[in-house]
């Protein structure tokens, strides 16, 4: 330190104690000098501003005396304290750590919340929540009018827990001054400020009292407005200042961008839902004399469709049925198949196969002939790589609650049959895949299921799943047969669920293919399993199965 009060430079003017005090008071850093006992000898203006309790002759507040240098919280301020020895005394240097400016905090929260959801109502809720938290007492978003001349609104009030929502006739909503223009995307010279005295009752929650200041902004969207926003302050609060106005405009433009993105997503996912509706697996119907159970898992993480599919075709019923209608009589029929490829493209082809069969079934019922016709139709398809493997099974009721399953297998893994004694057989039906060659070779087989016996159709996504304890092994047909053998006596729903679960556990979270399972069990009533005993956990094993 140079040139202090005790300068050796005789003859030069000396700084007076008043100069020193002024010098210290001019510092932004709080400076406190105290003696060894912690009694304040001197404190500058900045120190007194940060801690008004500091007075010369009094003690230094203990919170401001950390062992070394530290950041402490004192009187709601965050203060960094540096301690230095000055001769026999101690100096404390205090600097306030600024809290985030309100505007910055607002921008951070707006970024976090507004774009979190792609759902328009949730977006609107985030916008009004932000408004009520940072800007005003009541914030309301009015979404664009629907075709029925009604509007949805979402409202948040400061200090109230959750936003409220409602629907209003457009005419009622438009009683809010400036709302008509705002919904049309227009603002006038007023910069958004409207006559607070003209606020209609619906805009404010019950018991709010008179409005003092009102702002109404359009929410700018993708060339069409995404709605409008109204911000209200109570009469007993100061009106919106320039800073608040700037924040309000900022909130409106960000909320508009988020809302319009959400509306676009809603529109597209609505179209998507309609398009994939026919590609999803059907709900399995009740079929007289038997039970069906199915499971389909798509390899796609976010989508629900893929190249595996199954379907059920019940016999035609109702008017026009009979010889003269030209529609053939047939038993219920099930299919399970796998088209080349994955994802949406595969799902479209799978949907075409299902629809083609539905049409063909009006005229033909013999499984082999149906597959030949389907093959011709696939060969004629303009889409490249229209290859399909498929099992087609006609389900005929037979005396004694038996079911006869007429199976035609085209290039697909052969079905498995779970017999009453717990043995598992592979059905010897074979055939070439569809959509590749003009000539198809098909060797159909009929399986006789006694009551309680099960015929299982599955896709190669089940058997070709890689995983297991080593993570590199294929699940394989043998393991599937073993797993099926443990399902004796289970209801058919439980059976397919258990097989899917075993296969998922084998994958252990690894890359999965599309997987499909469809099982038919003979007999209308589920079997009584009460007598089956636990042969599934072999007592010779050291490690019995440990999860239920």
């Amino acid at each position, binding site marked *: 330190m140079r040139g202090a009060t005790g300068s050796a430079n005789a003859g030069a003017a000396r700084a007076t104690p008043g100069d020193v005090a002024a010098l210290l008071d001019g510092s932004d850093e709080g400076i406190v000098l105290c003696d060894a006992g912690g009694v304040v000898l001197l404190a500058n203006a900045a120190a007194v501003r940060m801690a008004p309790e500091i007075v010369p002759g009094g003690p230094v507040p203990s919170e401001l005396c950390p062992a070394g240098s530290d950041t402490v919280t004192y009187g709601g301020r965050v203060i960094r304290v540096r301690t230095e020895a000055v001769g026999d005394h101690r100096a404390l240097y205090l600097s306030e750590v600024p809290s985030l400016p309100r505007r910055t905090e607002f921008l951070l929260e707006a970024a*976090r*919340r507004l774009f*979190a*959801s792609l*759902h*328009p*109502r*949730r977006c609107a*809720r*985030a916008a009004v*929540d932000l408004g009520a938290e940072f800007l005003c007492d009541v914030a309301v978003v009015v979404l664009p009018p629907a075709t029925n001349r009604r509007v949805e609104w979402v409202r948040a009030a400061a200090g109230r*827990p*959750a936003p409220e929502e409602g629907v209003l006739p457009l005419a009622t909503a438009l009683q809010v001054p400036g709302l008509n223009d705002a919904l049309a995307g227009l603002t006038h010279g007023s910069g958004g400020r409207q006559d607070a005295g003209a606020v209609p009752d619906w805009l404010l929650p019950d018991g709010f009292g008179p409005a003092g200041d009102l702002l109404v902004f359009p929410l700018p969207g993708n060339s069409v407005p995404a709605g409008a926003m109204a911000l209200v302050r109570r009469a007993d609060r100061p009106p919106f200042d320039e800073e608040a106005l700037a924040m309000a405009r900022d909130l409106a433009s960000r909320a508009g961008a988020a809302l319009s993105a959400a509306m676009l*997503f809603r529109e597209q*996912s609505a179209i998507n*839902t309609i398009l994939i509706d026919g590609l999803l697996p059907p709900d399995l119907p009740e079929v007289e004399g038997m039970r069906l159970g199915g499971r389909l898992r798509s390899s796609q*993480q*976010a989508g629900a469709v893929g190249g595996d599919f199954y379907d059920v075709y019940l016999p035609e019923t109702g008017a026009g049925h009979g010889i003269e209608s030209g529609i053939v009589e047939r038993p219920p029929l099930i299919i399970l198949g796998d088209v080349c490829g994955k994802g949406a493209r595969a799902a479209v082809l799978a949907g075409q196969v299902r629809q083609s069969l539905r049409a063909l079934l009006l005229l033909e019922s013999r499984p082999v002939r149906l597959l030949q016709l389907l093959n011709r139709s696939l060969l004629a398809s303009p889409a490249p790589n229209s290859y399909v493997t498929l099992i087609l099974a006609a389900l005929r009721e037979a005396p004694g609650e038996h079911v006869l399953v007429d199976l035609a297998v085209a290039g697909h893994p052969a079905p498995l049959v779970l017999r009453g004694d717990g043995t598992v057989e592979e059905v010897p039906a074979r055939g070439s895949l569809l959509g590749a060659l003009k000539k198809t070779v098909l060797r159909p087989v009929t399986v006789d299921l006694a009551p309680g016996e099960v015929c299982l159709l599955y896709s190669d996504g089940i058997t070709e799943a890689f995983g*297991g*304890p*080593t*993570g*590199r092994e294929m699940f394989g047909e043998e*393991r599937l047969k*073993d797993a099926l053998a*443990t*399902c*004796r*006596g*289970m*209801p058919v*729903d*439980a*059976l397919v*669920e258990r097989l899917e*679960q075993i296969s*998922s556990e084998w994958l252990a979270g690894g890359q999965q293919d599309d997987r499909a399972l469809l099982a038919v069990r003979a007999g209308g*009533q*589920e*079997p*009584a*399993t*009460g007598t*089956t*005993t*636990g*042969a*599934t*956990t*072999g*007592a*010779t*094993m*050291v*490690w*019995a*199965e*440990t*999860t*239920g």
Partner: protein
Amino acid sequence: MTGVESAVERYLKLIGEADEYGAIDLVVGLIDEGVPAEDVLLRVVAAGQRRVGELWAANDWSVAREHGATAVSERAVAAIAGRVRPTPTRGRVTVACADGEYHALPTRMLAEVLRLRGWRVDFLGASVPGPHLITHLHQTGPDVVALGCMIATRLPRAHATIAACRAVGVPVLAGGAAFGPDGRFARLLGADAWAPTADAAADRLAAGLPSFAAGSDGEVHLGDEEYGYLTRHRADVLARVLDLLRESYAPMGGYSERQLEHTAEDLGHIADFLAAALYVHDTSLFTDFVTWTCEVLTARKVPAASVVLGLRLFRDVLADCPRARALLAEGIEAATAARPSGDSPARVT
């Protein structure tokens, strides 16, 4: 014995015989007699299913019988839902099982209880992958997600799902045995609320949950290097444990391919529970699993000593993982304590 209690006995008998129509007639009959549907769900169906779990653990019921009973209960729940259709008066809730969680029935029952209490409910079913759930949230905009998780090994994936839901501004209520008897893992993984039972969950949701709860509640410490090592090298660790087991347990020489595979699977469970315990930094998660496994094995006349052996081998293989070794030591102690029991402690008569 009250009517409901005697109904549980009858219900258990019916589902034990996979008598679907009998079970449905029973529950629908109770509703027609004036028993509230929520009571039928929680005090008959859920109570019956708890007994099923105990009977399986005690080896009185086979896996097939347990699955059959559960499938019938699924249908009974659907029948109850079809019988009572309240008008929605509350908000919308999405109910789902954590990714990899296949025990869907308790979560399904929560969905039905919420429906009965006037919520609009979307039930997404067993093992819902995170991206499916988040897509659903964007499409439907629910007020809250109720996430069910029964097996603690799914906790790391449940954690990712909870974080993803909260990031899109939808609060999460967690429930199910995996979150701990006091819900401590629910809080640890960042869930906004936890409830021990379906009716408690409905009460909790009625009080409301904030959309964007406090942003960063400070970084929670989850998982660590050892957790990362064990999950990345799971297959190698298991292979080494199996090799050691083959050396130290002579009868394994005579095992069939399938028996070896089952052994590997069971060792895999130990690895997975160990990883989960490392993830949430909780010893009792692992020791509870060990104790329970010993009970289940003892009921099947398999000595608990085999568990002790397996845990020792894991400890040998994981030489560079002090935290895992400490957990295994605790596990060995728990298994040793469980050893002397000649009869199954879990046996239900």
